[in-house]
């Protein structure tokens, strides 16, 4: 797994050479202590960033560990839950399966870039009005997926919303309230 991105690549702890990894006893071949890095230049919520990082770093970990944008959540880290949904060039994507290195000249929007405490985005307001959360862990991903659902024409009716929102799981099962919030906000969104 990809932990420790807050460390500069050169200050990462060296990895022990031959750790048995597989149950068949085949040991991991000795890998030289090289951690290739790249520099990614991109805009997040209207601010430009240039970050040097280990190639393995995902957009999710870069946002959370390097840019301090912890609104985007990590559920599964394998593309299965949607908690990490952000917008890249306006399209909803999973930041846990997006290699940060692959982002060149793109604009990323996270939950921190949606609305403001003084003026919530209509989708945020609708989630409050419809009580569309319990623990709230999935909510940033739900809201990013929901905004894209409306923009992409998925908010035609309740069944269409359920299908378009199906990639974003809610363990508290606030699904009926989420669907009503999306339909409500769909009528109020201007962008």
């Amino acid at each position, binding site marked *: 797994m990809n932990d420790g991105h807050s460390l500069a690549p050169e200050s990462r702890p060296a990895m022990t050479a031959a750790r048995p990894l597989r149950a068949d006893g*085949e040991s991991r071949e000795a890998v030289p202590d090289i951690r290739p890095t790249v520099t990614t230049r991109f805009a997040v919520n209207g601010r430009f960033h240039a970050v040097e990082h280990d190639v393995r770093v995902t957009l999710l970990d870069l946002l959370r560990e390097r840019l301090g944008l912890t609104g985007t959540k990590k559920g599964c880290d394998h593309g299965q839950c949607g908690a990490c949904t952000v917008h890249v060039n306006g399209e909803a994507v999973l930041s846990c399966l997006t290699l940060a290195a692959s982002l060149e000249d793109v604009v990323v929007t996270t939950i921190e870039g949606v609305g403001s405490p003084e003026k919530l985005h209509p989708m945020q307001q609708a989630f409050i009005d419809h009580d569309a959360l319990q623990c709230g862990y999935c909510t940033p991903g739900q809201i990013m997926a929901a905004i894209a659902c409306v923009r992409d024409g998925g908010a035609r009716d309740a069944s269409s919303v359920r299908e378009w929102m199906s990639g974003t799981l809610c363990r508290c099962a606030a699904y009926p309230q989420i669907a009503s919030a999306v339909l409500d906000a769909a009528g109020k969104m201007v962008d």
Partner: protein
Amino acid sequence: MRPVAYSRPRTPEEAIDLLVGAGGAAMPLFGGTTLLDLAKLEVLTPARLVDLRALRPDYRAISRDSDGIISIGGLATMAEVARHPLLRREVPAIVAALDQAASPQLRNMASIAGNVLQRTRCPYYRDISWSRCNRRIPGSGCQALAGIATSHAVLGTSDACMASYPGDLAPVLAALEASAVVMGGGGRRSVPIDGLHRLPGATPQCETVLAPGELILAVRVPHFACLKRSTFVKLRNRAAYEFAEASAMVALDLEGGVVRDARVGLGGVATVPWRSRAAEARLVGMRPVDAAMDAANAAFREAVVRSDTAYKVEMGKRALVAAIRQAVAMDIADD
């Protein structure tokens, strides 16, 4: 995930040089929704990722030529293909398969080439703590054959592997006689999708016929009269966002209610994207709804089942019968 190097070539030639130069150690990357997932699990351990994103502008177009052949850029996303008016009108089965595949987020990320080349979801393949998996560690054995199967295949299995091919699109493309436009160290060639994936046989680790460095730049779908009346039925464990337990693509050319030409593709039930010529043969010359059960039985006649996979045959047959009925009921607009 193991340390990995990264390149972002500007041309296919540059990408191919990098890939060929590294032998099998470098891998092309597009959406990463298969590759990054499996690299994190250390099922795939590339030394270099060759990101194809910079090539996208040249290999994302969707068009039709004067012979009616539809070309879909290999680097078009699943979402772009699913919403394209040409495909919505001409080949509804492709759109239906993509609309039911993965989630909107994943469809925005994933390419058509990557989709076709996705790996099995067999849990013994995905979890490296299992010591037996012939696909992952050649010659180590098959945990599914030795133990409990979970959504494994009943068609195209061997004594070495019974992992199912999970994708929704490739069975549709295989049955519609689509081919991949491939470019590699040896130049360009065309590879039929029905045949791109190798049956596991004794060497399940050899998953496709592509050589290291060969890129899929486009998929070409030839014109047949049956394309417009084509549809896709997917049966899964929940109503949305799940891989197929069984899927069926049916394309019919009808004249006076009788089948003139038919294509049948099956997903979720076979080790590779599956075209059932046996089912097609049972439909031609018949009234499709009358012949549906006969076609379904023919499609699964060769199935190899065990107690824990027997349900797949029943589901596969039902998916096929449902798809035949759905295709017949389609209201086909004239040009």
